[in-house]
């Protein structure tokens, strides 16, 4: 559904110029980036750029990741123990 009432969604004091093809919001001249006749707002372009750049960089040696790794070792140990106990039952 198209939002707003002819006013820019990001700058309500300005008159809207077009509609973002992705979020369907009314946007003003400053907020519009037009490519091949298609309007996009700055925030949708930012999201597109983020998607193109891929996932964010990860910090490996954080406390959370080390605890997760230790939990992982525990999970694999329990899994191997259960599987080998099942195998010894045969």
């Amino acid at each position, binding site marked *: 559904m198209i939002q707003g009432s002819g006013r820019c969604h990001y700058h309500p004091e300005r008159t809207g110029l077009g509609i973002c093809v992705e979020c369907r919001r009314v946007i003003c001249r400053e907020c519009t980036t037009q490519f091949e006749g298609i309007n996009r707002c700055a925030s949708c372009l930012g999201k597109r750029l983020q998607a193109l750049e891929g*996932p964010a960089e990860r910090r490996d040696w*954080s406390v959370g990741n080390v605890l*997760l*790794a230790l939990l992982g*070792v525990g999970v*694999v140990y329990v*899994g*191997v123990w259960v599987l*080998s106990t099942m195998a010894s039952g045969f």
Partner: protein
Amino acid sequence: MAVSALELRPRGAVAILDAGLRVCVRSSGVWALTLPGGALVTAALLHLTEAVSRNHDLGLPALGFTLAWMARGLFQGAACHHVQELLLGKGAGEPTAWSSLRAALARAPSLLTAVAYLFVFNALSLSVSLGFAFLFLSSHLVGYAATLQGKGSALGLYGTCSRLLGPARSTATGVRVLLLAQVLVFFNLHIAANALLYVGRKLIGIDLTFAERFASLDNAPWVVFLVAATFTLFEPLRAATSTLLLVDGRVRQEGLDLLAAVQQLSVKGARG
């Protein structure tokens, strides 16, 4: 860029397996980084099998196998880093195995989490789908190579792999199916071992009755040994193909082949 831009192009599953084999043949570093992990897993698996067949306490052998499996994950990560440096590294010459091992240790927590993630993911997906997941869930084939990229959450590994692979996801399924050639290697190893024993008995005249009885497919420890040996032999190929699949994903999504061609043109221009 270590390889020629002409070698970076979108490839099918067979071409990726072929390129992986060539990487394994040319680089001793991949073998140096994967064989220790394979040997540890083989030894731990034989110890576990012995404990299971003799009804011993399973606590310690299971712990040994778990640690070996974790170490194998670290070595796989190091091998993936090594192959990536071989293909895309900026330095001249082959990277050292030690530098790849250091790179894997820098990402050790995520690699260990990836080992557990893949263990649970494979167990759940294959058991719930009665094995059909093998044919339609293959992105995690590049799990260790994707972890080494240092992007995305460790718990969202499958999503990260899918995103990095992009259109190369279907190629990953093809590579996974082609890696079933391991079954052929398993039987070939068995036949080769029995042929050696036969030759030893006939030509040299040694009494190998006990060894021949051990090397039989109805002997569980022998089957386990063959499975582990086959698994170990395929470790370098697994690391090489997963890295090549990620490179293929970048070629298809980012135009890595074109970027490499432009880079190499500018280098040639500077020399000329």
